[in-house]
């Protein structure tokens, strides 16, 4: 298997991981809405995952850049910029005092990210298969 094949196999796994993180976030938000969890615990729990998620995604994007996978890089660049901007402004963490006011936005964001990871998962899968076929020929 060539480099591209390995890279996309790796990205498929990462995308699946990120996908599950987002599902977890959304489940936690709906738990909060149904009053199964209090905002303090929720924020403590979710904040552990915020930075790892951003770092993993940034690492994946970097891999695409370094290996010259331009299309995959361009697809991921906007999200990377969005995350970086949030960290720069210092509002990437969930704030327990504001969570109820901002909950609809957080949910929307998580859903959009979920969709994005899902689509990119299939894209990476497609590219992986493509790379494998190209290798076979």
């Amino acid at each position: 298997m060539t480099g591209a094949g390995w890279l996309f196999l790796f990205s498929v796994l990462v995308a699946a991981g990120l996908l599950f993180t987002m599902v977890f976030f959304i489940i936690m938000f709906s738990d909060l809405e149904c009053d199964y969890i209090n905002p303090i615990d929720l924020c403590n729990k979710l904040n552990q995952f915020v930075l790892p998620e951003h770092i993993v995604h940034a690492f994946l994007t970097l891999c695409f850049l370094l290996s010259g996978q331009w299309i995959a890089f361009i697809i991921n660049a906007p999200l990377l910029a969005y995350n970086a901007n949030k960290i720069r402004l210092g509002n990437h963490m969930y704030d327990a005092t504001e969570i109820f006011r901002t909950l609809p936005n957080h949910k929307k964001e998580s859903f959009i990210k979920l969709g994005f990871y899902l689509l990119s998962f299939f894209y990476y899968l497609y590219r992986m298969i493509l790379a494998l076929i190209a290798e076979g020929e």
Partner: protein
Amino acid sequence: MASPGPQQLPPGWTAEWEPTHQRYLFIETATGQTSWEPPVVDPELAPSSSPAPAAHHAKRRQYAAGQTQAYYGAGDNLNGGGYGGAAAPPQPGQLFTPGLAAENQFQQQQQQQQQPMGGQPPYYGAAQEPEYINAPQQPMYGQPQAQMNNLADQFGQMNMGQKGHRLYTTNLLTSPPDPRELSQPPPEIVLPPNSCVSPSPFANADHTYQRCTVNAIPTTNSLLKKSNIPLGLVLTPYRSLKEGDEPVPLITDTVIARCRRCRTYINPYVQFIDGGNRWRCCMCSLSNEVPQLFDWDQVRNQPGDRWARPELNHGVVEFVAPTEYMVRPPQPAVYIFLIDVSHSAIQSGMVATATRTILENLDRIPDENGRTRVALIAFDTSLYFFSLPAGSTESSMLVVSDVEDVFLPKPTDLLVNLSEARASLESLLGRLGDMFQDNHIIGSALGPALQAGFQLMSSIGGKIIVLSASLPSVGVGALKNREDPKILGTSKESGLLQAASPFYKTFAIECSRAQVSVDMFLFSAGYQDVATLACLPHYTAGQTYFYPAFNARTEDAIKFAHEFGSVLAQPIMLEAVMRVRASKNLRMSSFHGNFFVRSTDLLAMPAVPQDLSYAIEVQIEDTITAPFVVFQTAILHTTCYGERRIRVVTTAFPTTSNLSEVFASADQVAIATLLANKAVERCITHKLEDARDALFNKAVEILQAYKASMTAAGAGASAQLAISENLKMLPVLVLGLLKNVGIRQSAQIPPDLRAYAQALLTSLPAQLLMPYTYPNFYSLHNMPPECGTVGEHGVIMPPPLPLTSERLERHGLYMIEDGQTMFLWVGRDAVPQLVVDVFNLPSYEVLRGGKTTLPILDNPFNQRINAIIQKTREMRRGPYWPHLYIVKEDGEPALRLWALSCLIQDRSDVLPSYQQFISQLKDKVNGGNY
């Protein structure tokens, strides 16, 4: 003023004493119309109008009596049928059916109501403009009386059958705001007949406890959207009791009937069914069993009268809670004082004033059963703990200079019982100022001090009272001076109003969990970052007090001692959670005020101080089919006397599907309060401009909605700016908010003052918020002779003037007060005799502007003015003690401008005058539809 008593009124009118303005407010009971002028008796119409209001009252009383009789099977007619058989006498032994007794009576009342309408043509008849839909075929002015009567009949028919709200349209361009309107009660809540099981006038909570922005709730969300009025509740559940206020009835028998499904507490709006064995919840219509002991008088051990139970007769009640409502035995009240003893605090005299005030108020701290505990921690860049062994007068100081990792130097004797350690505490408080007399340390370890206080009390909970005079600079929570005059007035300014350090938020959450509440008293002369420090009281349900550039040698000491003393003396609720329940299809969507939102609708408040206001936005989720809806606020709390209680505040509002009624029942004061809260939130999350735009646009939207649906102009352009009579003050209140220190466009307001003003805007109850946005302005040199003397209801206040400097005369003496400060404006040509009389000074030239106390002299004019000042300081709820500033017309410009900035109807800098503002509104209202 020779106020006629109620006995001289024409029938159908009642007089209600209005304490703020020291005069009677005249109310026509049938229509709910109010007036400041005594109504004129019309000999012809008086007889016909008299039965209407009488029947109105009789109906409710008779109905309930009937209900009681029906329930107990008693036969005799209690009310003696004094109203011409207007109501069918209750059938003995038969179960009461709602709607039976009062129906035909109501129709009679209706017919009678229409007649007296013609009796007061001057009130609305003249104000009618031909353009409005309300009066399509209105004759031109000066038509004979008969025409007016016809018109009145038309009104009567337009009135949607039964409800009491009539829409009176006024033109904002021609009717200037009348300051007296603000203290009028909100539009009456006219519930459909038979909605309440009690005849008591207290069945609905007083509007000072809980009020809604509209007193007739629209049935659908689209109707609400059409009116553009924000729907919300404004609450002050823990309102203080002033003299003459009804105390909150207490239910001690721990029989607490609640709905099984929605957990609503039983209230006057439930329905008893099944022979009185079950009750139907007024929110979710579930039928519940009446508890067995509900009809049992446990004190006398005999069957009791169900209808006498306070929870069925009062909108505000307190239940003593049984053990199921406790997670632990009721805690004692705990007060921990964190006193800044750094150089600046000592120099300003803050420490001396604070210790003296605590000493003087030790007796007033709530401690009825000797459980209250106190601790004292002083801090500069180190922490100083004081060990106060019980029963001795000795105390020892323990210094902890390691502020990185705070620990308690001693396990016991730091947090002591107030009554046991009284002697040592008194001696310590007496010496504390001297102990640090020569302290030259600059800097403050506020964060570590807070952590230490928290460690001391975290197992119990209670109140931390912080007195700090400098920017925290050491240890956790250290803050940087981020005040930058260059960014004031720019879009970056809102950054200065956000918390600079996450510590004050995360620590607030920890406090909220451990039931610790923090009050901040801030005194700095320089930048202190009030915005960040205020987070702590904000999320722990405390309150921030700010004394910029405090100096104990001036009147500051009196102000601070008075306010600090009242805060110490006021009873507090501890370990409280608040929840607001509402009828089906209504949902509390967002919350404003000082608390931590612990779940979607549960507000955690470690300690609830008195007279703090909270605002809640309400959403209509689906069509409401019920004829009325109920809002119920319940606070489960521990009193500072060690009793677990539930305070329940219930208000019912009728619903309506009629847009004109939504407008006619709108409460401008509640709307302004809600808008203030929303604007402040916007200032912090967005930008200050956004908040101002949002305020202005809301006013435009409401006016547009009114014009489009309630006037004949519809969507087209109009020469008028129409709004209903009861919303007449809304534009000027919005203008007042736009000109408030917290929101105003200016590059000169220090961020500390802004942050403090915003803290006030979100926490003041309506009674204090209204003068804060629309100050009171009195002319003193030519006030009527009875003003300032003691009348029937205390000191008589002068009539308020509109807030414009046109009213300032060069020889006059004026007072402008906004509840937080008072200005005594002296004109430059003030008569020497006036200066002598009031200030005991030979001439105007010798008079000095600034903070002052007026001398008490032996002449009637001085005494009257002193009485007015005294009254202004006392007449409102809350601990605030306004400063008195003397402002000379040609004196210090800063002070003059400050005083003039209270006259909000004037133009100042870039901010429009009232006239300009109204024409801006008009342009927008007309322009938006092209």
